[in-house]
């Protein structure tokens, strides 16, 4: 992992360029959401220095990029564990065990929502609707991998898989 928070790797910049190309030439700010995701993937979270680096690259005010980073739920403005597990507890999921699944993970890991295990491996988050209510209980691992039908056996399997 690159710990130089003020600099993005050439690979990250290449990926950001691909996002910039989706929008009209005078609308590079449109790529800020994707660019922040790319930066978060690289750094593990989004320190202010990294947000500023993204803003500078896109030619926008650092505060405008920070506004975006602090508005959307899946940006991590604080360090998180190697595996960030987000559990949906909204009503449709709760009817099929979403809250109970979250309780189960809490007990297994010995942490509450918004906490990280002492070994830095897991962070637990409470999520809002992920648009997969038919698969409840659902969990997201590191924002990108959705896990469906997370009953106790499946949760055990997932946690064991996360090395």
């Amino acid at each position, binding site marked *: 992992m690159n710990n130089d928070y003020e600099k993005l790797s050439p690979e990250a910049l290449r990926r950001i360029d691909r996002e910039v190309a989706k929008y009209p030439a005078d609308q590079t700010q449109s790529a800020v959401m994707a660019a922040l995701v790319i930066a978060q993937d690289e750094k593990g979270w989004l320190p202010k220095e990294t947000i500023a680096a993204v803003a500078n690259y896109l030619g926008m005010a650092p505060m405008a990029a920070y506004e*975006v980073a602090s508005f959307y739920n899946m940006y991590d403005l604080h360090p998180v564990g190697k595996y960030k597990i987000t559990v949906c507890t909204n009503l*449709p999921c709760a009817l099929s065990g979403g809250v109970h699944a979250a309780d189960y993970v809490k007990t297994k890991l010995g942490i509450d929502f918004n906490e990280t295990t002492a070994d830095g491996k897991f962070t637990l988050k409470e999520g809002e609707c*992920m648009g997969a209510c038919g698969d409840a209980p659902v969990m997201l691992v590191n924002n990108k991998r959705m896990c469906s039908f997370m009953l106790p056996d499946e949760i055990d399997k997932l946690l064991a898989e996360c090395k």
Partner: protein
Amino acid sequence: MALIDTINPLLTTGWAKGDAGWSLKDYEARGGYKQLRRVLESRMSQDDLIAEVKKSVLRGRGGAGFPTGLKWSFMPKAAPVKYVVCNTDEGEPGTFKDRDLMRFDPHSVIEGMIIAGYAVGAKAGYNYIHGEIFEAYQRFEEALDQARAAGYLGDNILGSGFSFDLFAHHGWGAYICGEETGLLESIEGKKGQPRYKPPFPANFGLYGKPTTINNTETFAAIPFILGMGGEAYLNLGKPNNGGTKLFSVSGHVNRPGNFEVPMGTPFAKLLEMAGGMRGGRKLKAVIPGGSSAPVLPANVIMDCTMDYDSIAKAGSMLGSGAVIVMDETVCMVKALERLSYFYYEESCGQCTPCREGSGWLYRVVHRIEHGEGRPEDLDLLNRVTDNMMGKTICALADAAAFPVRSFIKHFQSEFEYHIENKKCLVDPEVQRMGSGFFKAGNV
């Protein structure tokens, strides 16, 4: 395993093979891109195209139910730069149909968007995809590459002289971006805070240019409408409620999932298709159109048909077709508490009645649920909703208020019991077992 059952497969024709049937080759094999080809080769006039969509009485599948053809006709003809935007920011609790459209039939959405672009004279489009469904976003990007390589996107499509390109924009966790102007702000790289309307997007949309925004399912229906003709599509449903509709059924049923049925299908039939009530328990209530729609008690919903007009007549909204089924193990106060927390958490904060009101609603329902309710709290809740509804830039305040008002209206005695006895009417152990998480041998 996303489509559970259907009476009349149209949108879901391509879902049969699940993850194995989404690619361009499969889509073309089932007649995909034929309608785009026909529109371009026959140089169909924009007016004729919009007239055909109007005839189908396709109504917006995202929740508002606005007639799609009419929406398209609002786009100014002369404007040099226009956009088409697809709203796949599917975050309304209970809704999960667009995710499956992205996974199993992304090309139907792409074809629908290109045809829409032709109809309104746009040369570019964006599909805004819900942050939490990264795999669906990736799939859509792949589908776009396929379509571009095959000449369905880009300059001079199929030699017609018509050019259109399409891009995916990935959200990152904000319910409010499902509101169309919040979504536009988000594509522009800003906080997703809704804009004042008017001006409406048809005049001042993305980057200030005329923009047509439709839901994913709406675009996916377009190729089918052109294939069978607007009138035939309308006749699949019932008057003023054209076509088929995807319903996402979640909660206490045996087979939660997506179902495609003709508009006007009885609720009882949909419930039967979803395998009936889990464990044979008794139906208590249904939220028929996503969490923002007023809840309906069992006896009312059992007499409804699933279409915009029938559900509206019963006092709720068909919304996005998200059917949240609750059985007798549910404490209605606890259910409302979770929904109220959601709106409090997701209010974007720019309008005081919503920012403050959603917090008031959550805190008061929370204290009732936790045995600290006061006799005057139900009046207080209703008064807070009076100060929210219709008093904000967008409909999130109304969406927060509808559940509160309808839960109290239909289940007032349960709320009163909670306040008087400082506990749930439904035994906590019964509630605990209702979710199905705990089975024999489990914790």
